């Protein structure tokens, strides 16, 4: 039994040293090169006195970034990958919380980290990766590592405006890697086309299975996801046969007509998750690729990526919903109404998860950890944690788990999990904005921000301000100024009214009228 994710790397480097592991299409690293670079970086960090602490990896997506992640683990630390396009303010908030002592950067990213000041040393990737590995030191570090030690911390949206860091350990990552690989049938012939950024847990689907099976992953350049034919040409050029993408990326291909113009030729496995895949789009994919296996994945970052999977084998009408399916091996789902298990078919409850795939909780935040990771109410005989997802589910007549809704206002957009509170807090940081409310327009897949501000406040000023505070995926697609926010009788923001109305009466000249015309579903029809 594996107790350290690096065992995957050791075995791959020994069995297939010359095979390419990760490539961006032009530049790649073989398993031996990846192993060598990781050990060099591990030695470099350990020799600087770093141990059992977060090390930030602030690099653009590349095979070298993957080596840096494994290098941090080799050095006995855990990696904190940050998007190299993260606005400064957000990086500051994360650093304020984490107070990291080291960051690995490249030339283009080091100035930002250096300018933050504080006690964070900025190390150049190339320098670290060319350190002579110290085998004895690395072996000593490995000898002291447990499978309950952290591997990484990834930051996800927080409702108070401050991002939350989810801490995952070796045990949960190994459990997830094994369960996902088994369910989706990865093997030595697998050629992954990676879409997920390396700073979210979604990239685990390619990262560790690539090592486990000595497979290969192409890190697809982000820009290709704007140009559907270029994207399918890339898939064909590299004979990519397995993709685990957000539905938005798949819809980009099907909705804009690329399936007919330039169909992907080698795909045998298509998995998707992170948000609902419009059934009409999924049906277009299935019609185009009848031999391909399609999987719907579901799971929270707090349970190390994905927890459940449904293979799409039967037909679904355009207006039917896709099941979340069944939990992975060694994971269980409880449907709870408070502490009471929901058993009647059709009855709804909160989806709760238990098993070795549970992460350790939120970095430096015992309060929120305690609220989400709670004692399993079905036993009081011994301590056992479950994770309460905040997702409401039910079982269908076939016994398959169905996702129904969110318990709170959390938004899922393009596979990203977004707390409206984070966008609202950012908006209210601008002088003049006195209230803000963010809702999701599901039909048009748009984030809509309502804000109260004087008429003089320019929409462009708010847009620029938000760009400076928030990552691109959190920027609202429509912003509407109101003179005052609607309130419920007890004085709370009337989120439900704003959501149901998106109501025209309150719109002003400043509003982005007609923005709701941008409808991805319409592109499809």
């Amino acid at each position, binding site marked *: 039994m594996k107790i350290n994710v690096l065992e995957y790397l050791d075995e791959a480097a020994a069995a297939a040293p010359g095979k390419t592991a990760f490539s961006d299409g032009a530049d790649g690293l073989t398993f031996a090169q990846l192993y060598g670079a990781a050990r060099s970086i591990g030695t470099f960090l350990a020799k600087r006195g770093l141990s059992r602490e977060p090390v930030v990896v602030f690099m653009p997506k590349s095979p070298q970034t993957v080596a840096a992640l494994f290098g941090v683990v080799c050095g006995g630390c855990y990696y904190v990958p940050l998007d190299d396009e993260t606005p400064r303010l957000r990086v500051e908030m994360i650093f304020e919380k984490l107070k990291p002592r080291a960051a690995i950067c490249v030339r283009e990213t080091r100035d930002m980290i250096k300018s933050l000041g504080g006690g964070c040393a900025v190390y150049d990737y190339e320098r670290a990766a060319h350190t002579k590995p110290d085998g004895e030191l690395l072996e000593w570090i490995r000898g002291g590592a447990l499978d309950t030690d952290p591997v990484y911390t990834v930051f996800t949206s927080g409702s108070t405006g401050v991002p939350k860091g989810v801490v995952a350990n070796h045990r949960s990552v190994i459990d997830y890697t094994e369960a996902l690989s088994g369910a989706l049938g990865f093997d030595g012939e697998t050629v992954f086309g990676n879409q997920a950024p390396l700073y979210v847990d979604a990239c685990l689907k390619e990262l560790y299975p690539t090592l486990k099976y000595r497979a290969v992953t192409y890190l697809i350049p982000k820009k290709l996801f704007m140009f559907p034919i270029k994207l399918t040409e890339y898939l064909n050029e590299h004979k990519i046969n397995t993709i685990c993408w957000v539905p938005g990326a798949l819809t980009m291909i099907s909705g804009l007509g690329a399936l*007919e113009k330039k169909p992907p030729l080698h795909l045998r496995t298509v998995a998707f998750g992170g948000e609902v895949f419009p059934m009409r789009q999924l049906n277009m994919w299935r019609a185009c690729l009848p031999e391909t296996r399609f999987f719907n994945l579901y799971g929270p970052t707090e349970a190390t990526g994905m927890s459940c999977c449904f293979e799409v084998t039967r037909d679904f009408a355009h207006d039917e919903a896709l099941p979340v399916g069944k939990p992975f091996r060694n994971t269980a789902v409880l449907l709870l109404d408070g502490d009471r298990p929901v058993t009647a078919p059709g009855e709804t409850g909160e989806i709760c998860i238990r098993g070795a795939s549970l992460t350790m909780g939120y970095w430096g935040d015992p309060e929120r950890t305690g609220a989400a990771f709670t004692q399993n109410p079905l036993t009081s005989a011994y301590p056992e944690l479950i994770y309460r997802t905040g997702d409401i589910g039910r079982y269908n007549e076939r016994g398959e788990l169905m996702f129904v809704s969110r318990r709170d206002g959390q938004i899922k957009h393009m596979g990203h999990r977004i707390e409206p509170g984070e966008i609202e807090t950012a908006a209210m940081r601008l002088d003049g904005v006195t209230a803000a409310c963010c809702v999701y327009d599901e039909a048009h897949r748009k984030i809509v921000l309502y804000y109260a501000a004087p008429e003089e406040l320019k929409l462009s000023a708010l847009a620029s301000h938000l760009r400076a505070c928030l990552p691109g995926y959190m920027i609202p*697609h429509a912003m509407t100024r109101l003179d005052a926010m609607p309130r419920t009788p007890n004085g709370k923001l009337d989120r439900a009214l704003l959501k149901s109305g998106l109501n025209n009466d309150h719109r002003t000249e400043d509003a982005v009228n007609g923005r709701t015309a941008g409808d991805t579903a319409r592109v499809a029809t």
Partner: protein
Amino acid sequence: MEELLGILRGLRPEIDFGTHEALIDDGVLDSFDIVSIIAEIADVFDVSVGAEDIVPENFNSARALYALVERLLD
């Protein structure tokens, strides 16, 4: 052209679309913007942008995009 600029400004109020020549190369637009632009062009100009026209050259500037719309209208 004014109509097109209106669409673009609606999407990204903070960008000066009149002068920007590298909307793709500089990473100003993302994939969601592209999908939205195509949908709105379809709506306003009653033309449909085919997959083969969704290439960086046609989206780098408002002018290039307008040239595409004119081609499609012909």
